[in-house]
């Protein structure tokens, strides 16, 4: 990493650190989960073993504004043509025809589009790495550069990755890509650098309607933990048995 980039990142993290102080108010207003109430205290006593993160997406709340994709690109310097997270728009006819699109990953919202049929139902589905427990991407990495953190986050060591692209092929969700700048496999890290400071992932924080929620399964009374335990949740492509840590509410059979 060159000096300028390092300085930029420092700036970026301090900027988000400042935001974090005001976080409590915003997040509570929006009805989302607030992990950052006592961010400074968390940062000092952070122990990976104490956490098991989970992500919950309520597709019924998503409005397709694309703020999450924007926030992710800004926070993680995602290359222009790639996506660590994106939003899909589904339109389904009564007969079951499905029309899916995701212009620029939904980053700039969704322009009007005419489907070739009468739309019976329509909704948005935000997507990101599912941080699977039985993930094929870690299984196939020949050099062990992909790994699970104790908190259940799937990460890539870009200092060790050889850029063979096998993990990109193995991920059934299209969550990984080869970063054209680093030539390494790249993917969503759940903003791990923020988590260790007690902050939420950038996309969760940016979501204006609380469609994206982030929680800790090891914390008693955690809203996401309760939601997964009590609501009827689904995961993407459950037949592949990858055991995602990303749960969906209101998923439809037409969702790929």
């Amino acid at each position, binding site marked *: 990493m060159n000096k300028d980039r390092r300085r930029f990142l420092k700036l970026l993290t301090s900027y988000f650190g400042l935001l974090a102080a005001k976080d409590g108010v915003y997040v509570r207003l929006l009805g989302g989960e607030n992990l950052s109430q006592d961010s400074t205290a968390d940062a000092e006593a952070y122990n990976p073993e104490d956490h098991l993160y989970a992500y919950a997406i309520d597709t019924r709340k998503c409005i397709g504004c694309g703020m999450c994709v924007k926030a992710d690109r800004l926070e993680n310097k995602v290359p222009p*043509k*790639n*996506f660590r997270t*994106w939003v*899909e728009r589904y339109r389904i006819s009564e007969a*079951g*025809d*499905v*029309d*899916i*699109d*995701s212009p*620029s*990953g939904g980053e700039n919202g969704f322009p009007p589009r005419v489907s070739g049929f009468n739309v019976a139902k329509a909704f948005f589905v935000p*997507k990101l790495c599912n941080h699977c427990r039985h993930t*094929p991407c*870690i*299984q*196939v*990495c*020949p*050099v*062990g*550069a992909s790994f699970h953190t104790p908190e259940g986050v799937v990460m890539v060591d870009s200092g*060790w*990755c*050889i*850029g*063979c*692209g*096998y993990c*990109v*092929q*193995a*991920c*059934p*969700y*299209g*969550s*990984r*890509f*080869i970063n054209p700048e*680093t*030539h*390494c496999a790249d993917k969503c890290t759940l903003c791990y650098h923020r988590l260790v400071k007690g902050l939420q992932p950038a996309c969760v924080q940016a979501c204006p309607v609380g469609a994206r929620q982030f929680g800790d399964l090891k914390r008693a009374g955690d809203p996401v933990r309760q939601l997964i335990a009590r609501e009827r949740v689904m995961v993407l492509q459950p037949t*592949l048995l990858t055991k995602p840590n990303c749960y969906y509410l209101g998923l439809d059979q*037409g969702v*790929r």
Partner: protein
Amino acid sequence: MELSGYSYPNDFFIDWSLMIVLYPYITGFVAGAFIVSSFYHVFERNELEPVGKLSLLCSFAFLLSAGLPLLNHLGHPERALNIFLTPNFSSAMSGFGFVYTFYLIVMELELWLVYREYIVETARRSRGWKRRAFKWLSLGVYDLSPESREVDRKAIRVLAAIGIPAACILHGYVGFLFGALKSNPWWSTPLMPVIFLFSAVVSGIALLIVIYQTDRKIHGMRIDQECVASLSRWLWLFMIVTVSLEILEIITLAYEQSEAWEIIGALLTTKLSFSFISVQMILGSLVPFVLLMVVVLMNSYLHEKVRNTLAFIAAALLLIQVFAMRWNVVIGGQMFSKSFSGFRQYQPEFFEKEGILAAIVIMIAPFLLLHLLNIIFPAFSDREEAEKGAIAAPK
């Protein structure tokens, strides 16, 4: 449910390029040519004696080149040795380094034993640097007594026998790399390693027919008909098995009307209609099948030239067939998005890093190596004798 043509946004780029098509193509020659050499050394098919040494040299030359397309493809080729330093054994790919190294050792030992007699005699006959080089190659062993040659023969047999499962592992594992990915229905089948292995043998035999005939033509030597007929018979058998397996896999998918067929059926009839149906199945399989059938069933009625020509054309077409198969598997499997509804295009450019020029250079490398190896270790002993005879004749 109709296909909407939606691809995941990260699926706009085909990452496993022409280089990853070349990699199984090249390793296929390694395994295939080695198995031919084992027909001779282990199963004592003596009619294959004319290509006995050639097959070993071929296999070795391609083995030395097998890493080139991979190194050109890696995002970080300078980290390639990480695969030895921290192999992740749950990954099929991590075995590559070990299988490759083991195979390299077996092949070097076998080559040395096969050429030991030649090395010792050359060291004795020559002068100057050549003498020194061959003395060094002989590793100080000059014993050519009948007993020691018998030991050599047995050792070659054992090594060639070890080489057969090693070749199967080397290429079976390449098939496994694709066959064991549940994310991709076009790859994910237990038949994949088997198909790869059999098509490797097809490509190996076909390559030997082409190189053997070309070399003989260039040097105006007689083409051994027993050898060509035998290679054609083996080629016919292995191509029938390979093509049957390839068709079987698709028929099963189509008959099951599985979820995967929705996208694969569309793939085969649209994006792959030319490279799969026209090239792989008709030009590359049906035509050589008929040509080889003539060579095999009408063998005793055929004139030498007809047999040579038919076998040569069939072999050349099968080389194209195997390339098309690699292309259809590797590129075909990436032409649809993992959303299983959208397609993407792949057209390698001529000058790009992993483009056509790089592919041509990489494909020339093993032939160049083979040529060099052939200068140091002649594949055909009769040619040398003939040349000596020609020099000796005027006296």
